[in-house]
């Protein structure tokens, strides 16, 4: 492992497909023992980044180091130290849970005794102990994801790459998932995960937002929320769509996002804005229940960044807050929404 204390380093990593630059000069680093979240809208380039870091896709330009191995030169030796769980279920449906686990254990040279101990432990943690002889193809979607994680963790990796691991997983199983991940962090493993759930992003030590192959932000969740320019107003209303269309583009509102019970706006001056909003909504013949200032979430920040385009200037702030983020966010584990 490199001296820098970074388990993963990306340096100008770039990958193009015909007609699209999927990953565009990506540079960031993940420290050892950290859990790092990569978020972004569909097509942002998350999967492409993960594939390059897993050594299964060759970058066009730039370089990356994972677990101390330069991927452009030593992708194959690096694979002994990496666990990769692809976004699409990658296990054998005709094999049972145990057979899949054994297959991956054998590929990584895990001795039999260790395999048996580890798989019993992991399956128990995943709540799958009684499904060991079921065919993988007959598992539910969430179970498949958990089996993917178990197979990825059957050897002792230094770096774990998870591409939307909790996609399609029910909330209870997601808790199992995160419990397993935090146990691994205690053992000094480094985790890079992508996620579509922004509440999960808040459980990471640091988070990076990817958009069109570039990184807009990279910081601890707490710092990111603090750095949101302006404040978040929540408008509770039954039919948020016309309200959003009405308000979008008004001077002083930099982004508008539909949420579960209404609308979130990012505004510069919340106190002055509340009465103005009430007036405008009423004048347009629309209705709303409450308008109040709320604490910003990561989601607010990301919508603001993608819609408002303010992200670029914050990119250089990325490296400076990780240390505090660590302890702070460990306590976060139980606290997802």
């Amino acid at each position, binding site marked *: 492992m490199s001296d820098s204390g970074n388990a993963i380093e990306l340096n100008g990593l770039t990958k193009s497909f015909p007609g699209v630059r999927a990953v565009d000069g990506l540079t960031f680093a993940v420290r050892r023992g950290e859990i790092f979240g990569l978020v972004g809208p569909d097509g942002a380039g998350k999967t492409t980044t993960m*594939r390059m870091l*897993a*050594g*299964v*896709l*060759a970058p066009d330009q730039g370089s990356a180091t994972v677990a101390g191995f330069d991927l452009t030169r030593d992708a*194959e030796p690096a*694979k*002994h130290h*990496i666990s*990769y*769980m*692809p976004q*699409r*279920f*990658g*296990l*054998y*449906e*005709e*094999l049972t849970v145990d*057979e899949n686990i*054994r*297959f*991956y254990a*054998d*590929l*990584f*040279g895990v001795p039999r005794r260790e395999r048996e101990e580890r798989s019993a432990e992991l399956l128990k943690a995943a709540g799958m102990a009684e499904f060991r002889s079921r*065919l993988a193809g007959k598992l539910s979607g969430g179970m498949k994801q958990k089996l*993917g994680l178990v*197979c990825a963790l059957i050897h002792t990796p230094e770096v774990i790459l998870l591409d939307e691991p909790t996609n399609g997983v029910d909330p209870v199983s997601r808790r199992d998932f995160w419990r397993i991940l935090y146990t691994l962090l205690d053992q000094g493993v480094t985790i890079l995960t992508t996620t579509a759930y922004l509440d999960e992003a808040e459980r990471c030590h640091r988070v990076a937002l990817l958009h069109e192959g570039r990184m807009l932000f990279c910081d601890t969740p707490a710092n990111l929320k603090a750095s949101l320019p302006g404040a978040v107003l929540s408008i509770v209303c039954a039919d948020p769509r016309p309200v959003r269309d009405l308000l979008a583009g008004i001077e002083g509102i930099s982004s508008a996002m539909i949420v579960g019970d209404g609308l979130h706006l990012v505004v510069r001056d919340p106190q002055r804005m509340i009465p103005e909003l009430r007036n405008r909504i009423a004048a347009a013949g629309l209705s709303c229940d409450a308008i109040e200032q709320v604490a910003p979430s990561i989601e607010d920040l990301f919508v603001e960044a993608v819609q408002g385009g303010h992200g670029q200037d914050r990119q250089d702030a990325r490296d400076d807050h990780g240390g505090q983020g660590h302890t702070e966010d460990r306590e976060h584990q139980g606290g997802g929404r």
Partner: protein
Amino acid sequence: MNWNRLCAMARKEMIQIRRDARSIGIVIAMPIVMMFAFGYGVSFDTKHIPVYVYDQEKSQQSQDFVKRFQASVYFNVVKTVQSYPELVSAIDAGRCQIGLVVPPDFSKKLRSGQKVSVQAIFDGTDSNSASLGMSYTEAVAQAHSQQLQLAWLRGRGQGQPRLPVSVDARTWFNENLESMVTIVPGVVAMVMAVVGTFLTSLTVAREWERGTMEQLISTPVTPLEIMLGKLAPYVVIGLADTSLCAVMGVWWFGVPFRGHIWVFLLSTLLFLIVVLSLGYFFSVVAKTQLAASQVSLIATFLPAFLLSGFMYPIDQMPAVVRGITHVVPARYYMAILRNVFLKGSPVLTMWQDLLGLAIFAAVLGLAATRVFRKKLA
């Protein structure tokens, strides 16, 4: 290369084959069905073969000859035609299987004690019944000759025996007609060419299609381990399949097995390496099961069918085509199998064919190890 990883690949592949109904079908049903389809697809009921006669002389003697055919249970003289084209079109249209042409000088030559050739044209598309028809025709001609000879001897006192009438047999569409027994060893080679390539053509493509490849190539497993691990189960299956075909050939079709079993196994092993590597190669390149299986069927079935000596004898091909047959591995295997089943001549006489197979096994096997890349797209 790591032995444990190789075994893990092979074990996984074996479990997949066992649990996949389609694989089981290819492994067990396909050889049996193909053996029957090729070896047995023809009707053995060769009694009353329809015959058209073009009697150019219409003499007493020629009519006697034709009557002999009519009298035999094997033939049914359906019609007498007045021209050659009529005869040809009847064969083409399938109205008859044999066209008999009696020359205009039939009786004249017989009288002067010369040898007469009667032309018999066979529809060779159904080679089994054609071959039987041919031997019956010869038998009838022979019997007629003997009768004439007896009469002639009786008339002349003792003299040297002659065979006045012979059949000059020409078979259309299958110039060098072969009997059932010679066909079956070729069928075994054909079946293995197709089944072998087909089996492995699915194996890599399936991993791409189902999305299991991405996770597989993120592990330390090497391309060589992937290939050997995937092919090992199919080598075992292929040997079992070939033995099954051979047993069917001997017990069901009554083909002899005169050579050494180990020549059979060695050549089969070499041929399996050839076809399995080829299938693996297509599978890696095509990345979809459909494309891979289609390409492999076309690439193995047609050459094995047309250019291996199965359908047309190699020594009767035009020089250019004969040259091409040297790059059809099935050609060598076919020759070895025919020898092993029918002749059982010493191994050394087959060294060229064995060498040819070994070279193809080495080249294609090596090419297959090179083609796979542990990267996406």
